[in-house]
């Protein structure tokens, strides 16, 4: 289908983009890779009057080493995330999860920042970002600000970004030695959205789990940290039995959606099973 009519600007700097956005308020929408927004436009489910294309702002691409953090530009594509040596070395979970996003064509166009700012509850990267305790960097008319990942996702497709704000980058803490990771995703066709996804990070010491972090995809309107699993896994033996026992509470307190792909009970079951698998893989047992 043909999208409704809209104006289009392609600023060269973040400042220009912010002022273009600020001028039009809620009628303007940022576009980066366009892999989520363009389908919405073509289906005429969204009618922005102005698209601000970040495609001309190259400072938003790339990965920088900031000591104990990595700063990943919002326009870095999934493909670049998968193949970046710094990300591979310091937060491999992000690279592994980005490799499961949709299909190669989408991974070449779609961007990390776009996927996170779109905040689709079935998107893979929001749960990973939440599990990694990352920080979002936003720039708006009032200057820059930082938003912790766990305060960033507010609702279906809704984030803490204001109408005039642009997500410029994501600061991810480097995982030290001893951390293992795994993103487990369940879907029926290769490029489909996750019916349920689980991002697990496990730090082992002396055959025990010293610390675990678990993020759940598509188990609610926003990505969720499975706090009860994290508490149960911490201090547990790094054995398949202990980790599976810890994973039993993965679905507690969640309100997963019901749709064609699965009923809430099915999703809760998936969450428990996938959390067990992800923890085992992350702990290397």
């Amino acid at each position, binding site marked *: 289908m043909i999208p409704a009519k809209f104006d289009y600007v392609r600023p060269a700097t973040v400042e220009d983009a912010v002022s273009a956005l600020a001028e039009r308020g809620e009628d303007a929408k940022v576009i980066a890779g366009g892999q989520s927004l363009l389908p919405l436009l073509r289906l005429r489910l969204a009618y922005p009057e102005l698209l601000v294309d970040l495609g001309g702002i190259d400072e938003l691409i790339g990965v920088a080493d900031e000591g104990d953090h990595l700063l990943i530009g919002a326009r870095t594509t999934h493909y670049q995330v998968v193949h970046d040596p710094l990300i591979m070395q310091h937060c491999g979970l992000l690279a592994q999860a980005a490799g499961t996003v949709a299909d190669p064509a989408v991974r070449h166009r779609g961007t990390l920042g776009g996927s996170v700012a779109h905040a689709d509850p079935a998107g893979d990267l929001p749960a990973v970002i939440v599990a990694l305790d990352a920080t979002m960097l936003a720039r708006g008319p009032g200057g820059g600000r930082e938003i912790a990942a766990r305060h960033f996702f507010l609702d*279906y497709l809704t984030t803490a970004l204001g109408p005039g704000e642009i997500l410029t980058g994501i600061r991810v803490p480097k995982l030290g030695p001893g951390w293992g990771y795994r993103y487990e995703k369940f879907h029926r066709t290769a490029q489909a959205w996750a019916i349920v996804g689980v991002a697990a990070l496990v730090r082992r010491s002396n055959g025990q789990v010293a610390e675990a972090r678990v993020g759940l995809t598509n188990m*609610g309107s926003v990505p969720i940290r499975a706090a009860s699993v994290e508490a149960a896994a911490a201090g547990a033996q790094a054995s398949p039995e202990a980790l599976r026992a810890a994973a039993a509470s993965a679905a507690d307190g969640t*309100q997963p959606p019901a*749709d064609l792909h699965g009923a809430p009970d099915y999703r809760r079951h998936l969450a428990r099973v996938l959390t067990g698998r992800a923890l085992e893989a992350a702990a290397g047992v």
Partner: protein
Amino acid sequence: MELEHSFSVPVPEERAWEVLLDVERVAPCMPGATIDSVDGDEIKGRIKVKVGPIQMTYAGTAKFTERDPAAHVITLEAAGKETRGAGTASATVRSKLESAGDQTHVIVNTSLNVTGKPAQFGRGVLVEVGGRLIGIFADNLAAMLAAEQSPAPQAPARPEPAVDTAAETTAVAAAPADSTPDEALPIDVLNLSSRAWSSLRQDGIQTLGDLTRRTEQQLRAIENIGPASLADIKSKLADRGLALAESADRPVTPAPAVPADVNGSRPAMGRHAGPSETDAGEELAQVTPLRPARHESVDAPARHEPSTWQPPDNEAIDLLGVAGLPVLKRAVPAAAALIAILFVLLGIRRRRARHRA
């Protein structure tokens, strides 16, 4: 999707019955709804739904299809069509009233049906959002009914235990003595953006009263409330004749928690979520603090509903203007077929001419 909500209100059943039958007062309880016209029992209106970048407006009608005083059942049917697309949404809302002394227990069964693009593309998100809207509708209905009660002393309302949802909590705050009925309404009636709504709720602001006890500075201090949200909140409050607190002369304190039997008029609102209501317990746990309200002012929601109606944009597409010359290519096969037929006809005529010769 089938949903069930239930709540108790401290008004006698006859009163609740009367209010529930007043379309003009029931309709504004639906978030995002505006009334275009009222004709007897039938009400024409539209409802705007916005989820992130997705926005849809459904226009349609709502009317009562069942009024059975013997069975204490009221059924309201609403059906609408997308104003910019072919999708439809319909809901049958069946309310059953059960009298329990001075209280009325209301069970709301809703069957919600969404068709078309939004339903397909949204992977169920829109149905979920619709279910949530109906949850808010039930809350608003409860708030409006509770505001109906007379100021006469009544037996203390005992909180109805939540039926089965573990995440539910029943938090109750009492509004200050000078509150107006409007202040008892949940902030949902303002139809704020979901960002502003979530942020206010996270800060413990549940009712218009909670909101008007804050100053502008305090709201600004809340994460994610910026100048745009603030302006929106202020204008929507002004539509209802309310305003934010002044910064200096009205010290703001959280509403004091009052034991359940102090004003004896709080609604007990156990809510029972249907199986598909997805959002977190926080949402389900929505409870509206209320106090005795004056009868004449409870029409307020209907009267003050800000009108957000806008003429629908022209849907017609100028195909040539949008797609340009390539559209003409679509005529090529037809033209080719015509030419082919012409050749065949010419050939036949020539052959006949040769035969005659």
